[in-house]
């Protein structure tokens, strides 16, 4: 998207702002956390060190990347409004949606580059861990691993879209943090909670009613837990990728696109003071 001439200035300024927000430093710390957590976790496993290392590495990646995205969104949108940079960036003779789409493209591209970089390093570390102990079920670092990362990228794209909408409508940058994290936790957990309550109704009283209420969230939030297909990489079997992956993927990306539409609508009507 940044290659089109109309968005290029916004993309360039977005990358500069991201670098000023210490994106490289964030990326370096993310690598240290993910690789360190994977190596330490592997030490705790008696039978499957590579599997546990990969599992924990993916978990840290899945938890930390939304934080990096939120920092970028805060820098590229909230700070823009706080510091009144919009007096420059939005006074050009072009529509506001160009500014928004350019910045979203920068956040999405930088987080995708970060995901691929950390993913490569994680795969290398896990391969090295795997050489120390021959597991009965080795991890699959080929296609299943990269498919898992692709689904994670879709998950992060949805998070980026929601964070962008919140950044446009929110008054304070901290609301972007709270709102996006709340959304991510709810969207990633509700379907699993419904499944656990169905299997174990003794966890809460009136589990059926409680489960029905949580199930209603399915009409409000995308099922991001279904996009977590790491079992295919952990145990080397495509069976763990749900049959309905295409509809889940389309639904989730459509949900994110909807929020981008709302964000464009909001920024077109936003009154800057």
């Amino acid at each position, binding site marked *: 998207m940044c290659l089109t001439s109309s968005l290029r200035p916004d993309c360039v300024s977005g990358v500069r702002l991201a670098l000023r927000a210490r994106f490289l430093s964030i990326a370096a710390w993310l690598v240290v956390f993910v690789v360190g957590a994977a190596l330490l*976790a592997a030490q*705790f*496993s*008696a*039978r*499957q060190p590579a*599997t*546990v290392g990969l*599992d*924990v590495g*993916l*978990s840290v990646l*899945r*938890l930390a990347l939304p934080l990096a995205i939120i920092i970028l969104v805060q820098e590229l949108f909230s700070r823009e409004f706080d510091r009144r940079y919009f007096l420059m960036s939005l006074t050009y003779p072009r529509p506001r949606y160009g500014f928004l789409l350019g910045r979203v493209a920068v956040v999405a591209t930088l987080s995708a580059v970060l995901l691929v970089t950390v993913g490569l390093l994680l795969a290398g570390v896990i391969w090295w861990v795997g050489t120390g102990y021959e*597991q*009965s*079920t080795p991890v699959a670092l080929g296609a299943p691993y990269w498919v898992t990362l692709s689904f994670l990228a879709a998950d992060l794209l949805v998070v980026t879209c929601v964070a962008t909408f919140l950044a446009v409508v929110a008054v304070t940058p901290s609301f972007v943090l709270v709102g996006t994290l709340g959304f*991510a*936790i*709810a*969207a*990633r*957990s509700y379907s*699993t*909670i419904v499944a*656990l*309550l169905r*299997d*174990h109704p003794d*966890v*809460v009283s009136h589990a059926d009613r409680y489960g029905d209420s949580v199930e209603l969230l399915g009409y409000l939030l995308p099922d*991001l*837990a279904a996009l*977590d297909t*790491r*079992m295919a990489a*952990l*145990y080397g*079997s495509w*069976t763990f990728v749900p049959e309905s992956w295409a509809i889940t993927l389309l639904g989730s990306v459509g949900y994110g696109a909807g929020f981008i539409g709302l964000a464009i609508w909001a920024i077109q009507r936003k009154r800057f003071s």
Partner: protein
Amino acid sequence: MRFSPLFAVVFFLAFLGSVYIKGHTVTPHAPQPAMEGRVVISAPVQLLMYGGDRFLGANLEAMRIAATGGGTGESNTAYLIRAHHVVAELNACHEDNYYIGNALLSLGGAQDEGSELLRLAADCRFWDEYPPFFYGLNELFLNRNAQAAQHAIEEAAKRSTSNVAALKSIAIRIRAAEIGDERLMVTYLNHEKELASDPGLKAMLEKRIVRLEGLLLLREAQEKYENQVGRPLKSPDELLTAGILRIFPEDPLRIGYEFIDGTFRLGQVKIR
């Protein structure tokens, strides 16, 4: 406004005074209820705690078991049962969970719960021969259910790529009631103890081996008694009065052995 720093100092001093007085006042404490076992947080709550990541919850709980599950007694077994079950709920495919859980629970007074872990793992790990194999071993040796054991070992043979012939042979021998060698379980545990790198796990397996050897001693003594007297054993005390045993074997896990329907079995933990 001029006196605001003074106000601040006065109120901070008052706060420090209240902390000092509270720290030097002896107040009778209400008796606290005794702690029975460690806390295990349910799977849905763990899911929320870890940002909706069930795999992270399973891994961290499995690490906690590896680091803290080394005690003995009923409260420790009850803790292990709950913790292993929560891991299985979050990720039934977790290999460490079913493997260590089976070793610690099935021979640690909770054979039903150990077998349940294996059943869940066998469902999730549909390609893996080990969960049904261990399940069959438990059914054969602990539950004396040859038919269930044979089915489980046949399932393991279907899944196996390198041990098909050996597993099929075991299943056939079970059907023909040829496998009566209960030392098989002890041999297997000794092998696992040698492979274990963690000293804590080694010590835990050692206790279970001693417990199992105690059971074998009782079963051998029963067989000897019945051959000598020519009638089934009615009470374990008859082994002492007949002079076959001087004392009953001691269970290092302090759960004991049971004599039910004329058969010695490993005692089970009573979960309240």
